[in-house]
């Protein structure tokens, strides 16, 4: 696997105008240049390209679905910490399904909330919403306090969220029923019926990060769950 270094011109992208440049790539004139060190990845059609690099601090990007922790509350909105810096994001209390001025969701400091970044410009505070453009929640919203929240590498989360990732599929075959929410900011929320299962899942997700083949993944998961 070849690695690109910051400053390298990327020639593999056929039409830089039509495709989307993700994290780590930028357009300099008519050249696509890498701004991070890592492997060049592409996905989908129309093509999306990005650099997979080791990253621990999340950079808010528009459209990402993230898991945040509420750190402050006013009458109109709550402040959510996404793990990136430096400011916390704003989540309006009206941006929930079925919310109105009289009927606002009951959110307290310390609650975990799964939301989507509506606006993440570098010059302003990031803005979150928990509904889509039709007004439906689609799974977004407050996550139950019975879950378990932990951090992993941001790059690993992105990998888990790609459509052809085998880890989640294999986990759902081997593990007892569980509920999982993966945020693009490197946070994963887990819930299952028993604490023992949650611990097993936590170990499994952390170990699966370093397996290199499907057989190795199967062996690791079998050892954890049996």
């Amino acid at each position, binding site marked *: 696997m070849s*690695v690109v*270094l910051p400053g390298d011109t990327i020639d593999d992208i056929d039409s830089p105008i039509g495709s989307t440049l993700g994290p780590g790539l930028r357009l300099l004139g008519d050249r696509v240049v890498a701004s991070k*060190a890592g*492997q060049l990845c592409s996905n989908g059609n129309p093509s999306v390209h990005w650099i997979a690099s080791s990253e621990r*601090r999340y950079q808010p990007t528009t459209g990402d679905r993230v898991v945040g922790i509420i750190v402050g509350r006013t009458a109109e909105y709550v402040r959510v910490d996404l793990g990136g810096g430096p400011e916390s994001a704003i989540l309006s209390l009206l941006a929930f399904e079925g919310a109105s001025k009289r009927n606002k969701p009951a959110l307290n400091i310390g609650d975990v909330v799964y939301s989507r970044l509506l606006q993440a410009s570098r010059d302003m505070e990031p803005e979150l919403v928990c509904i889509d453009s039709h007004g439906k929640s689609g799974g977004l919203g407050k996550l139950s306090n019975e879950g378990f929240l932990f951090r992993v590498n941001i790059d690993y989360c992105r990998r888990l969220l790609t459509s052809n990732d085998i880890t989640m599929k294999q986990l759902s075959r081997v593990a007892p029923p569980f509920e999982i929410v993966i945020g693009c900011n490197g946070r994963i929320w887990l819930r299952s019926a028993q604490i023992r299962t949650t611990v097993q899942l936590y170990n499994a997700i952390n170990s699966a990060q370093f397996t290199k083949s499907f057989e190795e993944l199967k062996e690791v998961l079998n050892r954890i769950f049996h």
Partner: protein
Amino acid sequence: MDNGEVDINDEVSETLVPHICCEFQVLSKTDGSASFFQGSTSVLCGIHGPTEVKQSKQQNDKSAIEISANFNTVTHSCREKMLQEIIKNTAETMIITHTYPRTGITVSLQALHNDGSSLSAFINCLTMALIDSGLSMSFLVVAVTCGIPREPDKPIILYPSLEEEKLCVSVVTLCFDSVNYDVVTSYTTGTFSILRYEQALLQSESAGRRLVAIFEFIKRRSSDNCS
């Protein structure tokens, strides 16, 4: 090396740089960290950022970079402060600070063992830690130290040890960017003729190209281990 590409297994260019060893993510609480061994000299670097900064240090259009470097010298003088400023200026050319306005990036550098060529070890370690942190960079910066001996017919020493530095009339530290190999930083002590400086520039550029190939190899190896 006509087209500027360097083969990592090329025996001739092996002699240009000392034995390099680097490890990423050595510090658990930082956003990026690296330990860098350059011959016998070793440095540790940790990066925090982009984070919140005080209003007084905040800049509206870019990130404020703060370097804290501990050179492990017995006396602390203005020279250490000046070297910190040099490292900071080098970091500012590398990092695309406009991507992170109103934030601060804190870099902590610690010398573990100093056996000469310490400024170049610091800058190379900083480059590796920045690679690990995933901050936006316009290019990598590689640093080379040359020792210019007193006798004009003796060859220039690349990466001199502490003993060799004492025998040199001048020590030149040069930093190159990884795209065009232009000079980013030049720090010299002592006196030297222009001819000797030009020789040092040419030799450092070759060593710099080798160093970029080594950095790429290190990053590739660590990516293979992780994915």
